[in-house]
């Protein structure tokens, strides 16, 4: 990105809310100019089902971001240059593909051509019809079984391997969420998986080196990102989230949707602590008509079952990629549902690793330290990093002045 000030916005369109952070990037760092959120409408399990409503919510979140820091320093929507958009939803899926190549040089020294070829082979897997690639997560190179985190060029070995975890999604759904932003005449510069975005801010580089699993439990989906050897290894999303907890309470206790949500927030707990079947809690506590008592044990049991199920689903999705041994830093929980009491214990019971609730640096404004903003915050950081990496790659591919000067004229 150029050193001219660029106004960026990170937008996460979730099932329960739309969060936006507006920042100004000068080439050396970014300054947060505002943040805002809006209750989401028209999004279900991370997928757009009501285009105008979601568009309205997105605009409102950006407008709120303008107002959050006061009229003078807020950035009008029309001045936003680029948007980083978080992507989630049950339609996301991933697969691993690997490429291998025998090093071509007689002295077994890996050349740039070997690297490019092995990468091309690893990326060559075609996607099914109607699917669109969202993210490629490169695993470390392996040279005769040795892990090479950076470039293996000039190292010696016979067999060079590299693998990619490719995340893809439904083409129409990705286009829908893409157009949520582009219809505001703002360029979508990056689309980033929500799990990767959250993992960027709630984990440290050391944790990522040791191996860590980040689970961002949102309203309709739960995003996950597994880091190993300092790199994202597997990422994806499952279509269960905090909304399912409320829904289970609504069905199990015969409540309305709003009541189920309130009970979850007021009396919810991820593991059963209550041993007294007779212990009751009031639904609203205002002794009004309709207010009634609910068994606390039932509430906790319902929530424990669903929370456990969420983690089980994530674990199942990870498959063999996750093991407590390769995830020494444990599991980090974030997202709005991570505020549910005892959820870390519930996760630890499933994953058999230490679990803690993710926190961001104290340098950020206090409202942004809420788990609800972790994805947008990480999105901003990751988006800037990806933009810089992309520009650096373009610059390196561009021939220099001398090379252009002495280049042979093309025959064509």
């Amino acid at each position: 990105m150029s050193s001219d000030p660029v106004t960026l916005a990170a937008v996460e369109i979730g099932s329960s809310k739309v969060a936006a952070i507006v920042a100004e990037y000068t080439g050396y760092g970014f300054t947060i100019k505002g943040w805002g959120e809006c209750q989401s409408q028209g999004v279900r399990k991370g997928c757009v089902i009501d285009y105008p409503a979601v568009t309205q919510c997105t605009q409102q979140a950006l407008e709120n971001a303008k107002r959050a820091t006061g009229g003078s320093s807020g950035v009008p929507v029309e001045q936003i240059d680029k948007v980083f958009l978080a992507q989630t939803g049950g339609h996301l899926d991933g697969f691993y593909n690997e490429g291998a190549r025998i090093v071509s040089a007689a002295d077994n020294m890996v050349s740039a051509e070997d690297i490019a070829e092995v990468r091309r082979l690893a990326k060559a897997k075609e996607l099914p019809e109607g699917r669109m690639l969202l993210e490629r997560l490169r695993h470390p190179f392996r040279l005769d079984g040795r892990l090479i985190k950076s470039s293996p060029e000039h190292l010696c070995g016979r067999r060079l391997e590299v693998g990619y975890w490719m995340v893809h999604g439904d083409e129409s759904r990705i286009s829908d969420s893409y157009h949520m932003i582009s219809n505001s005449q703002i360029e979508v510069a990056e689309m980033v998986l929500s799990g990767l975005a959250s993992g960027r801010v709630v984990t440290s580089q050391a944790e990522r080196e040791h191996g860590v699993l980040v689970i961002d439990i949102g309203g309709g989906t739960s995003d996950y990102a597994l880091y190993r050897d300092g790199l994202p290894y597997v990422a994806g999303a499952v279509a269960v989230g905090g909304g399912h907890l409320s829904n289970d309470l609504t069905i199990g206790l015969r409540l309305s949707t709003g009541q189920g949500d309130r009970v979850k927030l007021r009396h919810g707990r991820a593991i059963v602590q209550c041993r007294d079947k007779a212990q009751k809690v009031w639904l609203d506590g205002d002794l009004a008509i309709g207010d009634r008592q609910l068994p606390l044990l039932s509430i906790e049991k319902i929530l424990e079952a669903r929370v456990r199920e969420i983690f089980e689903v994530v674990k199942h999705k990870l498959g063999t990629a996750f093991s407590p041994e390769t995830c020494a830093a444990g599991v980090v929980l974030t997202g709005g549902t991570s505020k549910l009491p005892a959820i870390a214990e519930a996760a630890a019971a499933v994953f058999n690793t230490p679990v803690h609730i993710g926190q961001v640096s104290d340098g950020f404004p206090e409202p942004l330290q809420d788990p609800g903003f972790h994805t947008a915050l990480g999105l901003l950081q990751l988006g800037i990093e990806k933009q810089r990496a992309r520009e650096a790659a373009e610059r390196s591919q561009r021939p220099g002045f001398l090379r252009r000067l002495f280049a042979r004229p093309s025959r064509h």
Partner: protein
Amino acid sequence: MRTWRDIPQNVKPRAMPRAVRRRLWLRRLGWVGLACGLAALFVGAYAVARMMAEGELQLSRASNAEPISEVVLRTNGVLDQAWIVRRLALPPEATLLDLDLAALRERLLADRQVITVSLTRKFPTTLEVSLSERAPVARINVRASAGGPPRPQLVARDGVVYAGSGYDAQLLGELPWLGGVKLRRRAAGGETREGREGGAGFEPIFGMALVAELLATARNEAPALYKTWRVVSLARLESDAEIEVKTDSIDRIIFNARESAGFLRQIAQLDLLLDSVQASPGAISEINLAIGRMVDGRIQVPVTFREGADSHGARIEGPGRSGTSSIAVPAYPPVRSSPTPNFFHPTRPAAREF
């Protein structure tokens, strides 16, 4: 492999939120406005350039055009076309652009009959001259050089002495002569022969505004009297603030010039006095309207008769020399033999009229 970057960015306006559509329209309007502004700027610049080019063309046409065909004179006085043509003395082939208007203006102003001049080029071949002129109040005889013959000159209200041209001879003949005036030469600026002969070489005469006021009052209020006035002397104006007038029949009528508004009163007084003195007008030598006195609410003025003149028949009121207050005094002593003048006052109520 198809990635999210292959999604086209463009979105149909119908799919945009209302705020974005409004913003989009405002932006388009802004561009249209900018384009219109630029277009207007270009058109304006083109028009200005064209006007300038045409103006230059007109000027060049005018400069290459025919010589001046007409000089139009607009004046508030008596100067005529012949005078202006003679005075300007334009070369026969001169065009409007050849003229030095400042020099022509100075040339016209050299004639002191002219107060202001305005010269306007009316393309292609007309020169318009607007003048304001001085009006003569009196005449004066001026010698251009010591021992030379006197030349009659005119004097305007502002005291300027000028030769005057174009006036009706009868009008000039009615103007009184000025006397008791010492003309002073002007500084070197106006010392041209033409200027000297035209009266331009003299300083304006002091007090002419008062004289003009007196003469105008007399001409308007008592034209019969005014016609008899021959000489107006300013000899005692500066020292005693008195203006002396010599008429056909009276040697000297003295007016008080201290207050110009009093001329009307004094002329009326004179008129009534002459009406009252029904003797031969030639009998009166001097009437001094500059002094007088109030007696029983009436003003009395001294009148001096010529020696040996017959003043019988004069209707006299007030205390005469005899001390009587009778209306008619059949005979009155001659003025010269009398150490003190006789005081007369008109028969009409003085307080009301004067």
